[in-house]
C-alpha cells in the first residue's frame, strides 16, 4: 500500500428500493422521498425513490474496510442516488504514514460515482492498515 494505490471498486449493480424501506426503519427516517417515487417527484427530485445519504456513505465505508480499519471519513454529498442506479465506490491512497503508536495510517481520497452521471459523494478517509 503506497501513494497512488487505487482502492475498490465496490460495485452496486442496482440500488434497491426495498432496501430503502428497511433502512428507513433502521435510521428512523420517515422522509417519504426514500419510500416512493411520487414523494420524490413532489419534492422536485425526479420520479424514483431517493437513497438515504448515510447508505451512500456506507458503500464507501464498505469498500474501505476491505483494505483496513476505517478511522475517519469526511464526505460531501453532491447528488442524489436513485433506486435502480448502478453506483461504484472507489478511492486512491494519497499517503501512508506511521503514527506515534507505530500504526500505519493511509490517507485516501474516496468517492461514489453514479454510472453515467458523475459523483454522488466525495471526500477523504483515514484507514489503519
Amino acid at each position, binding site marked *: 500500500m503506497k501513494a497512488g494505490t487505487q482502492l475498490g471498486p465496490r460495485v*452496486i449493480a442496482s440500488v*434497491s428500493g426495498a*432496501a*430503502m424501506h*428497511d*433502512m428507513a*426503519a*433502521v*435510521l*428512523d*427516517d*420517515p*422522509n*417519504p*422521498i426514500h419510500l416512493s417515487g411520487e*414523494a420524490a417527484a*413532489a*419534492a*422536485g*427530485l425526479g420520479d424514483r425513490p*431517493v437513497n*438515504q*445519504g*448515510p*447508505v451512500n*456513505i*456506507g*458503500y464507501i*465505508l*464498505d469498500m*474501505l*474496510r476491505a483494505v483496513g*480499519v*476505517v*478511522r*475517519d*471519513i*469526511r*464526505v*460531501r*454529498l453532491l447528488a*442524489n442516488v436513485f433506486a435502480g442506479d448502478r453506483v461504484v465506490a472507489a478511492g486512491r491512497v494519497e499517503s501512508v504514514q506511521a503514527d506515534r503508536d507505530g500504526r500505519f495510517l493511509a490517507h485516501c481520497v474516496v468517492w461514489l460515482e453514479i454510472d453515467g452521471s458523475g459523483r454522488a459523494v466525495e*471526500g477523504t478517509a483515514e484507514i489503519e492498515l
Partner: protein
Amino acid sequence: MLAIEAGSRLPGGTYALGEDRHAKLLSALGTEAPEDGSVHPLCAWVIAMGGCGISIGELFEAAGVPMEDGPMLGACDLELLKPMGVATTYTVTGTIEALVEKTGRKFGRFDVLIVRLEVSDPDGELAATCTPSMILPRR
C-alpha cells in the same frame, strides 16, 4: 421544543443497535458482518442518531422544515475511535454546532444545520463522533 441554534444541546440518551437492525443494514449494503464481531462502520451513524434523544423527523420539525420539502444530508464527518458492539448500550450526547443561511442555484434559499454527536461506551470512553451537515430547504 428544541431551539435550533448554535450551542443548543440535544436531549441525548442511550442506544443499543441490536442484531435485527444490524442485519438489515448489512443486507441493504449487500455486505457481510466484520469477522472480528464488531459492527459495520456505518452503524456509528445509526447509534449516534438513534441515541441523541431526538429523531430526524423531530429535528427537522423543530427547524421548521416539513419532510415534504426534502431536507437531506449534505456532508458528514464520522470518526471511528473504537470497534463497536452490536449489543453494547452506548451513551450519546449532541450539540448544534451551527445553523448557516445560504442561497444556491440548485436549492434557492436554504439553511445548513451542523450537529456534533459523541458516542461513548459503557466505560465512558469515546467510541465515535458523528458530525452531519443537513440541508434544510426554505420555501
